[in-house]
């Protein structure tokens, strides 16, 4: 009967599908703690042997990168990524960049990068999903506003209690609003900082919360009549820090962390911060 034959064919097809989904050879997950001698291009288990693939978002903004060209080694994160690659022993032509959206950077599954650099803040919660390198920057959040805004003269957190603040979704800037400032009006959340800046210019929000270097860049180069109101205190007492993101259980985490630590001890990180994040001091601290 054609019905029976059809059923057998379908069942056979389904069984083949299950067999095909059988686990491939399990990836070897090394625990961190491999000796420093292993951290050379020849022995590092990068995606492409002998080549380092770095990921970042599209577009990327100053002062972290310049001209949306991460490979020009300019901008603080552009320069740090370049320095890490050099410390690990990769020549300029052995480094490749890929663009990775935020979701693709943190989703489970194989990654298209060896490490990702894009202002990711290190938290314990997030460590369950990805590996972080040692931190390469200590962040503070700042509030910016237009010069005529009702919070332009704010001197303390209490002055911001009735402000309509905005931030980009998924950022620690947003968490600063909900955990530190705790204003009465609900904070406004935007897909990206471009929309948030537009809302600030339209007067739809009184103030915008950004990390301090971006705040300096925006107020000095992007929005004409804006100013920095001040820096916000850290949410839970522990300083917020940026780290490089790697796949969970990546073999490269210890090598990359050692490279970042080396840059910190020899003063490269401080030098790059002074070069690219120059306006870092001078914003009053709100309490």
């Amino acid at each position, binding site marked *: 009967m054609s019905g029976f034959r059809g*059923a057998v064919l379908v*069942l056979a097809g*389904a*069984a083949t*599908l*299950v067999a095909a*989904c*059988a*686990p*491939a050879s*399990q990836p070897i997950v090394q625990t961190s703690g491999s000796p420093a001698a292993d951290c050379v291009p020849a022995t590092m288990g990068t995606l492409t042997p002998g080549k380092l693939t770095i990921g970042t978002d599209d577009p990327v903004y100053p002062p972290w990168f310049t001209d949306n060209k991460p490979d020009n080694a300019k901008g603080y994160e552009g320069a740090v990524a370049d320095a890490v690659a050099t410390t690990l022993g990769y020549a300029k032509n052995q480094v490749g960049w890929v663009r990775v959206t*935020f979701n693709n950077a*943190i*989703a*489970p*599954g194989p990654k298209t990068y060896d490490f990702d650099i894009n202002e990711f803040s290190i*938290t314990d*919660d*997030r460590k*369950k*999903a*990805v590996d972080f390198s040692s931190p390469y920057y200590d962040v503070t959040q700042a509030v910016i506003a237009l010069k005529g805004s009702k919070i332009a003269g704010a001197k303390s957190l209490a002055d911001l209690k009735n402000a309509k603040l*905005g931030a980009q*979704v*998924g*950022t620690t800037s*947003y*968490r600063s609003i909900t955990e530190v400032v705790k204003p009465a009006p*609900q904070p*406004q*959340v*935007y*897909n990206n900082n471009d*929309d948030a800046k*537009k*809302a600030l*210019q*339209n*007067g*739809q*929000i009184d103030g915008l919360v950004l990390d301090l270097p971006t705040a300096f860049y925006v107020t000095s180069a992007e929005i004409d009549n804006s100013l920095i109101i001040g820096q916000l205190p850290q949410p839970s007492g522990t300083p917020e820090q940026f780290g490089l993101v790697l796949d*969970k259980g990546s073999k490269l985490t210890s090598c990359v962390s050692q490279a970042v630590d080396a840059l910190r001890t020899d003063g490269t990180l401080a030098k790059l911060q002074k070069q690219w994040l120059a306006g870092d001091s001078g914003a009053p601290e709100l309490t």
Partner: protein
Amino acid sequence: MLIAAVSTWFFGSLLVVAVTRAPGWQRVRESFFDPHTAWHSLPTILRGLVLNLELLVCAGLGAVAVGLVMAGLRTLRQPVFFPVRLLSGGYTYLFRGAPLVIVLYLFTLGVPGLRLRGTPSVLVLGGCALVIVYGAYIAEVFRAGIESVHASQWAASRSLGLKYGQTLRYVVLPQAVRRVAPPLLNDLVALQKDVGLISLAGPIDAVRAAQINVAESYNYTPYVVAGVIFVLMAVPLIAVTDWVTLRAARRQSADAGR
């Protein structure tokens, strides 16, 4: 009945085995189906859902009203109304073609930039964008309904002495609306999701609340939670749609005298 049950059980277990034997299943399960994160994110997602529901009711009613008016204008017969038909037609072409996201951007971030006095809040502007775009789709649905009513109905009304407006109100529209209830309800189910797009302008809806939770924990379970909530919300609406469709089909096949 037995074959149906056995077949369902077989394919069901085949699917479960295929997924759970995949090499990455453990991590996907932790990342997408973590009960702790789901529980933790539920309150904020439900709070965002309130915004979705409020907007759904307002935008839905507005879109139906706009759609009805536009469809009525577009189906005017006399030649003197040609410009009206043209404008109404142009409206449906423009706003069915324009992506909703772009219209939302123009309304919620563009219009306030004009700094006109009395600019309404972002929610009102976003609601207007939704009404205008969905009104275009619903206008076409109503127009199809109106034009599907047989010409003999119009003729019969005329012979009874009913004016154009009365014909429309008492004879044509009741039939038209009943005929297009299924696609209309379909559009409503689609609107249920699209109202969440207003979150691009600042307000926090259910999906945005889920997104915030995802970014805090790097865990995707809040998205699954939000998805489940939306499906549960849509189930009554879809069930009503199916029931209405079935009843209309039965009624029409009964009319055909089968």
